[in-house]
């Protein structure tokens, strides 16, 4: 009886809803010392001195370290696999605490105290003297000659610049009769806002350091802590309990190295570093803000002759994931709407702002807002039907990307758009809404999105899996692709039950709490790759375990192995279908046999050398109240071709979460920085307008289940894709309703007021009467 494909309850549902599930803070010793980071109050400069004399006098303060105390070691933080080739290693550009501070919120000193109150009082009592330097917040300004330099190794602040060249753009644009559509789009800095802030604690054990951390990537953090502290990597042990969301922020080394260092400074006593929400906004990671310039040369028949793309990605003060993000977005450009003549350039630029890293979508939400807004704008300029234009120009069935070898096996884009259009009555509504008058208008918009699963061939892709048989015929399962709330453990249990031949997914006990001393090596949870990547290792290891079980069954039953099968937890003779033995009885015998006792286990690594497209689209319907400058999303539908669904209910939940983040990105979220000081203005959950359930319509998720041919279980990416198309779909719906092109996010009342005034939909209140 198959487990894969069923909407079974999550394996962790009961523990999570009853509060039994243990998160990092639940596991920490209540008597642990508490750490607090003292942060830079200037955007750029040098720390001249740190006066800790008053802070040290506060009762309960145990230890204070400053940027003058820490080892002079620079380390990388990105949650990428290590590369054994130096040229492909992540940029190491920060120390545990920094004397050269590069943004408001940079880490200058740290207090260790007996409790939170003493730590907070001491942090406030520390006096830091700075030598301020000029600062720059905008990536294009940072590239200009004479701009302040953040890292001397990058004198023009450009962390990396990459290009794509296809055909001959300059010659192609000479073709007579072309129409040029030249536009800029802009997307803001946003933050992940996972429920559980980043938290970790560290303690010494023997000559090693143990760190319990709310991370997506325990094995990677082990390496970076070793690098940051100058310790052999084996001296570091990382434990990852349940985590309250990560969305990419925790696909980075955050404060694990500093916390470990602080514990070592107090003799290995347990030290907890729990980052407050305000600091999570500023001093963890954010999504890259980008400025995107697209020039399209279009023939009157609605085909592209040539296209140019420039992307400027705001990295903030340190490299983190760096150029990988904007490069992924740029990579989608020539693929999504193939065109023979393309010039594309992307720049990742250091600025004196919060550090940008991975966030759900990894550069694709930014790219899709620009690309799919532009598609609509091109059609509007040419008077073309934008849906027909997309069908005509979008990546066709059979398209193969030369680099990744990804293939569009099933015409996924068109299938998804067809279904979305049918489900929403898009064609009729789009026409009906096109020429409205009045204060409140409706609109409908569509946006397909490009995405691909995993990171091969850019970096290492592999998964290791261990399975251990229990006396009752159940198994333990371990992989390092971590449960981060997305439901991976449940999907793994369903897969493993089917591959091994167990009756129920509940016969698989997934070890959710990863421990680098115990869990087989793997890279963690990111890139929407867990079911895809771990799926290979689970299938391969499951087949090994099954083979060993059948060997033992052959021995017990005296039947040849080729006549035996393991189905629903029973050994079956295939020649007549007779059940010869229950797996539970076999397992007990194997454990305790007086003649042949063996612990049946299996372990293997699968190195993935493939990748898979994961496409879809979103349709949004909105109601725009023009005088109030407000948009209400009245319907939102995502369609995904993410291959075969392992668990349809979990897949739907995953899509709902991504759509919710997309609504916030579209309409309300933006981390603001004061241009005069570089300070974040709204780094709290009141002033940062994360969308609430009251801002959501009923969210609809649907699927086209094309079995992915490269995959172990027919599955591919679904974690990040749902958030990618929502903002451009809403934007195009606003355009349909009002005729106003809004080219920046978020499309909040501030922006809509300005745009509606510019387009004459709103009159200045002082002149309304006259």
């Amino acid at each position, binding site marked *: 009886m198959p487990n894969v494909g069923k909407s079974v309850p999550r394996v962790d549902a009961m523990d999570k809803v009853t509060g039994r599930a243990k998160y990092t803070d639940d596991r920490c010793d209540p008597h642990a010392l508490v750490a607090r980071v003292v942060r830079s109050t200037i955007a750029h400069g040098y720390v001249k001195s740190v006066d800790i004399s008053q802070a040290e006098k506060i009762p309960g303060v145990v230890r204070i370290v400053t940027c003058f105390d820490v080892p002079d070691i620079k380390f990388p933080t990105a949650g990428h696999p290590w590369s054994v080739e130096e040229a492909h290693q992540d940029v190491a550009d920060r120390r545990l605490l920094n004397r050269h501070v590069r943004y408001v919120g940079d880490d200058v000193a740290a207090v260790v105290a007996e409790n939170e109150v003493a730590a907070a009082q001491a942090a406030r009592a520390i006096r830091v003297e700075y030598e301020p330097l000029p600062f720059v917040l905008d990536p294009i300004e940072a590239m200009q000659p004479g701009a302040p330099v953040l890292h001397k190794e990058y004198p023009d602040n450009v962390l990396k610049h990459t290009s794509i060249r296809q055909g001959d753009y300059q010659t192609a644009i000479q073709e007579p009769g072309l129409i040029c559509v030249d536009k800029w789009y802009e997307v803001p800095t946003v933050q992940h806002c996972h429920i559980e802030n980043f938290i970790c604690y560290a303690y010494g054990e023997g000559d090693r350091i143990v760190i319990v951390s709310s991370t997506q990537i325990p094995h990677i953090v082990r390496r970076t802590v070793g690098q940051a502290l100058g310790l052999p990597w084996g001296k570091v042990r990382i434990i990852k309990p349940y985590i309250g969301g990560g969305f990419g922020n925790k696909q980075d080394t955050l404060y694990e190295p500093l916390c470990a260092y602080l514990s070592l400074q107090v003799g290995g006593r347990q030290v907890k570093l729990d980052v407050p929400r305000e600091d999570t906004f500023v001093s963890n990671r954010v999504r890259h803000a980008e400025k995107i310039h697209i020039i399209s040369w279009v023939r009157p028949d609605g085909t592209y002759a040539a296209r140019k793309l420039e992307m400027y990605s705001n990295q903030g003060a340190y490299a983190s994931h760096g150029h990988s993000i904007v490069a992924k977005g740029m990579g989608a450009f020539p693929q999504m709407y193939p065109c023979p003549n393309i010039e594309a350039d992307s720049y990742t630029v250091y600025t004196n702002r919060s550090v940008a890293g991975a966030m759900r979508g990894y550069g694709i939400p930014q790219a899709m807002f620009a690309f799919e807004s532009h598609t609509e704008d091109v059609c509007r300029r040419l008077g073309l039907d934008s849906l027909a234009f997309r069908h005509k120009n979008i990546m066709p069935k059979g398209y193969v990307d030369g680099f990744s070898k990804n293939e569009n096996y099933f015409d996924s884009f068109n299938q998804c758009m067809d279904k979305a259009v049918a489900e929403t009555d898009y064609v009729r509504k789009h026409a009906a809404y096109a020429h409205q008058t009045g204060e409140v208008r409706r609109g409908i918009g569509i946006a397909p999105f490009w995405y691909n699963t995993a990171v091969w061939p850019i970096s290492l892709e592999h998964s290791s899996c261990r399975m251990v048989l229990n006396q009752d015929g159940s198994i333990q399962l371990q992989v390092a692709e971590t449960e981060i709330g997305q439901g991976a453990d449940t999907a793994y249990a369903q897969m493993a039950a089917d591959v091994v031949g167990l009756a129920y997914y509940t016969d698989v006990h997934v070890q959710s709490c990863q421990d680098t001393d115990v869990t087989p090596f793997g890279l963690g949870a990111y890139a929407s790759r867990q079911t895809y990547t771990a799926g290979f290792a689970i299938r391969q290891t499951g087949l090994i375990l099954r083979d060993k079980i059948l060997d033992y069954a052959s021995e017990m039953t005296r039947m040849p192995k080729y006549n035996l099968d393991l189905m629903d937890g029973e050994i079956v003779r295939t020649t007549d279908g007779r059940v010869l033995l229950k797996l539970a009885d076999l397992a007990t015998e194997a454990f305790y046999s007086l003649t042949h006792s063996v612990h049946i286990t299996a372990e293997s690594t699968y190195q993935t050398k493939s990748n898979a497209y994961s496409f879809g689209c979103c349709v949004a319907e909105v109601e725009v109240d023009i*005088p109030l400058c407000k948009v209400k999303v009245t319907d939102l539908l995502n369609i995904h071709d993410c291959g075969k669904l392992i668990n349809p209910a979990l897949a739907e939940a995953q899509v709902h979460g991504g759509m919710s983040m997309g609504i916030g990105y579209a309409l309300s979220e933006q981390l603001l920085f*004061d241009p005069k000081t570089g300070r974040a203005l709204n780094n709290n959950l009141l002033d940062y307008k994360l969308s*609430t359930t009251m801002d959501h319509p009923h969210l609809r998720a649907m699927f086209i289940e094309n079995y992915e041919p490269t995959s172990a279980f027919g599955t591919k990416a679904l974690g990040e894709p749902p958030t990618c198309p929502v903002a451009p779909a809403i934007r195009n719906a606003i355009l349909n309703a009002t005729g106003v092109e809004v080219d920046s996010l978020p499309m909040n009342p501030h922006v809509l*007021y300005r745009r509606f005034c510019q387009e004459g939909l709103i009159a200045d*209140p002082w002149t309304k009467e006259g």
Partner: protein
Amino acid sequence: MYDIKALYEAESTAHAVQLRLEHPEAQIIAGGSDVLVQVREGKRAGKALISIYMLDELRGIRIDDEGNLRIGSLTSFSHITKDPLIQQYIPALGEAVDMVGGPQIRNIGTIGGNTCNGVTSADSASTLHAYEAIIELTGANGIRRVPIKDFYLRAGQTDIRPDEIQTAILIPQDSYKDTAGYYFKYAMRNAMDIATTGCSVNCRLSPDKGTFERVRIAYGVAGPVPMRAPTAEAMAAGKPVSRETVQAFAQAVLQDINPRDSWRASRALRQHIAVELASRCLTESVHRAGGAL
């Protein structure tokens, strides 16, 4: 863990007054939804607190001997919204405080705390201004009553003397009788938000519903403290109930309000929205009063 120097628990209103005199440096705390946030942020860290939260005598809503609608200062937002007297006489206030934060905040937050904070964005404040509420303060020498417009001294500062606590908010009968009102909270999202602009309007129509006998309007976040728009009110009084009057009334608010430019919203957007809200609130008030436009 909060950085609190001491916590004094008042056992009666008289005891609270005594504690105020004994600990002049201490901060009053009711539901704590503002004070504890400020302690956590470090703004009020290390201070002593006088808790009045256990004083049930300050809870509840009734009509007093003078016909005032009397709201005990510790009455929570969720109790105000669900109270039958509020729903009968001044539903706009129940609706206004139902827009504060989320359900948990509305269960813990009190109308007394909301007004004593002195912030211009408080969801109760504009409606209380529009109904000319009276603030009742109890001190060593007994009770003092202050009109709400005088209670707000400046941003974050209200007229509470060192020996006093706020004990009730009174809505005079003349304010709520034969009157219908509406509050519009304009915010950046539909829950868990602070008003960008809040507008509360109420009107009394002539018996034939043809004339505005009285119109009152108050704003939050149109200035440093909640404020009325007297020019607009005077302009509408005695005028026929018509779209033209509503439009002229809405336009006239610009002569009264003085919103500021900040990163939270531009002055121009706030002015534009203030006019729009005046129009929408008066229109809805007319409908609620049984009139037609």
